[in-house]
């Protein structure tokens, strides 16, 4: 037997931490004044300010202070990836993987979020999704790999009026808050979090203090006999069935849905601990 050397690095979970967030503007889109959205004008736009502020609010629930920096990509990369990127990963040459390598332009210990217009999954018949993370957890501190980041649809960023946003995160009526929610959700995956409850209500994260929402208990009574089925009639656990008692977690940032009126972006202490222990958080 070949002798192996094992090293385990441990550190106590700090109560707070800082994280640099690199936001790549891959989408070919205009800001709220109609000018092309660029890294140089992004933070002057009130919708983008709201997005950043709400994103930071979600991170703060894990004790993390996020600092956001925007970056542009080339016109060719915008045209190739920014309008509609395939969410299917077929290998290191897939569009998503190749887009993540753009982070090599800015080395550093950063959480990389790529903002595009549309994401579609050809494997499901080409249907729309709004966020994808490279891997759980992501390859923290290594920019430029085929999994160095997460992608978020920014299509809702300038939707609606800021006057409907209010003082707290409002995913029901505030476009920037929706994009912030998706960005924070994908960041949670990159830092090591799984969905608290998956679509089928049969798979859950391994944490002890997150609320779960089991199909066999929480699906509508007429749907419960179909729990565990692999057919198209298997129930999908909606967030509003997961709001109290033994059926909880619909309000958690890492629930599998973003459902207006239920999703609040909450995080449990253990979720915060997982996030803060990631090497991206210093």
């Amino acid at each position, binding site marked *: 037997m070949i002798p192996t050397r094992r090293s385990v690095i441990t550190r106590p979970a700090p109560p707070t931490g800082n994280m640099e967030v690199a936001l790549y503007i891959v989408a070919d889109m205009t800001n709220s004044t109609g000018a092309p959205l660029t890294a140089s004008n992004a933070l002057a736009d009130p919708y983008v300010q709201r997005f950043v502020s709400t994103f930071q609010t979600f991170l703060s629930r894990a004790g993390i202070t996020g600092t956001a920096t925007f970056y542009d990509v080339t016109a060719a990369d915008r045209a190739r990836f920014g309008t509609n990127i395939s969410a299917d990963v077929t290998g290191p040459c897939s569009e998503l993987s190749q887009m993540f390598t753009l982070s090599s332009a800015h080395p550093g210990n950063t959480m990389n979020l790529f903002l595009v217009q549309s994401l579609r999954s050809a494997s499901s*018949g080409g249907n*729309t999704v709004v966020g994808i993370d490279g891997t759980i957890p992501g390859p923290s501190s290594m920019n430029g790999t085929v999994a160095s980041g997460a992608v978020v649809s920014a299509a809702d960023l300038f939707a609606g009026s800021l006057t409907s946003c209010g003082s707290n995160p409002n995913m029901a009526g505030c476009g920037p808050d929706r994009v912030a929610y998706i960005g924070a959700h994908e960041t949670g995956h990159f830092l090591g979090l799984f969905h608290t409850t*998956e679509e089928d209500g049969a798979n859950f994260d391994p944490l002890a203090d997150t609320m779960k929402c089991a199909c066999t208990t929480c699906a509508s009574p007429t749907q419960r006999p179909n729990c565990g089925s692999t057919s198209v009639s298997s129930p999908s656990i909606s967030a509003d069935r997961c709001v109290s008692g033994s059926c909880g977690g619909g309000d958690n940032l890492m629930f*599998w849905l973003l459902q207006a009126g239920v999703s609040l972006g909450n995080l449990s202490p253990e979720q915060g601990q997982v996030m803060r222990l990631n090497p991206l958080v210093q």
Partner: protein
Amino acid sequence: MIVFLIAALIATPRPSRSGATPQEPVQQEQLSDAELKERVQTYLSTIERPISAARWKALGPKAAPLLEGVIADGAQFPTIRAKAVDGLIAVAPDRAATMVGKLARDETEPVVVRVAAMHGAGQVLSSPRAVSELRPVLRSARNPGLRAQAAEALSRSKGGCTEVRDQVSREAKANRGAFERALKQCGD
């Protein structure tokens, strides 16, 4: 062992990343109106999980008016409207056929909605109609990425590849990477 375990965890792609859903036989579900509404709401609220055409179809034609209402409501978020377009294409292709061309061409519609409509046009329109409805987008959409999406939809239509190749020859070099999927579909 721990090192290997950690390495395996880091290297393992997320199981749901592609959201791959096997082709399932479509069996219509028996849902009450309230359950149908809840299911539509759930499908429109997904983050990473794509809803397969089979799952949409299983909701049956009663889902169509709900989805049409979402698509027509400009106050809804663009990503939700785009998902509703996806759903309508699956549950009521005939009804979707009446709107996808118009949505795809409308420069005032959000990009994500136009992309969904173009994808649908390639599925629910006859080849000649898809070519005639999407040609204006292919040739003159302001956003090169949208022109590339029109190309991709047309690459699946009979006669569409000629249009695609002509457009690629007109595009600036910087934009041609966006047409890769369409050209690949055309066998180039």
